């Protein structure tokens, strides 16, 4: 049953990826990436249930923490770039 959920969850990677490809703007892509990492958190959590191993939760922790950092970096870069362009 849980496996079915994993499959369902992994399906949600598809639209996210399409958005990543289509863009059209960079923030769109970042949002897509962000969503994908959220999906990753969900997936690893489900894997923990399926495999009955808690170690997978660690992956989820790391993913949750780290993807945030990545998103912030993107945002920061984007903002700086445009502020510079305006000047």
């Amino acid at each position, binding site marked *: 049953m849980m496996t079915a959920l994993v499959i369902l969850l992994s399906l949600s990677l598809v639209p996210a990826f399409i958005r990543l490809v289509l863009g059209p703007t960079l923030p769109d892509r970042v949002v897509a990436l962000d969503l994908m990492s959220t999906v990753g958190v969900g997936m690893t959590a489900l894997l923990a249930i399926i495999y009955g191993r808690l*170690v997978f*939760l*660690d992956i989820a*922790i790391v993913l949750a923490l780290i993807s945030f950092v990545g998103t912030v970096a993107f945002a920061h870069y984007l903002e700086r770039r445009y502020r510079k362009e305006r000047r």
Partner: protein
Amino acid sequence: MNVFLLSLFLALLWAGLFGTADWAVMLFGFVIGFVLLRWIGGPLKFARVPLRIPQALGLVIFLFYELILSSVRVARDVVAIRPRRRPGIVGIPLEVESDAGIMLLANLITLTPGSLSLVVSRDRRTLYVHGMFVEDPEAFRSSIKQGFERLLLRLLGR
């Protein structure tokens, strides 16, 4: 958010990373976090806020409620054949003044139904918010002011 709360959070993080909920570990993490924060905390300039637990709890509960609500609305709109959305950007005059307050508010607003904070104006008086269902800007404005800002003000006391 004060040192104590932060230490608690760090303790959680610590335990999480250790992979156990061993109370000794948690306590150790808390102590370390507390000491460290005290030590380096000076420069960080945490708002010296008295801890108001009931208000904080209220806020959290309210937040959960709002989160679920907003999620459901957004989700419904996503699959809806005829979407009900009315996107718009609205400026909200701010009453909170501290940095922490503004930040917290902006974040909280993002979690509320159909609203997403964009930018704070230069004079730090207005927060511009993107709303997904803005039928009436004024109503939207007041709902935020009555909802979150009020709770927040109660928690932080300006």
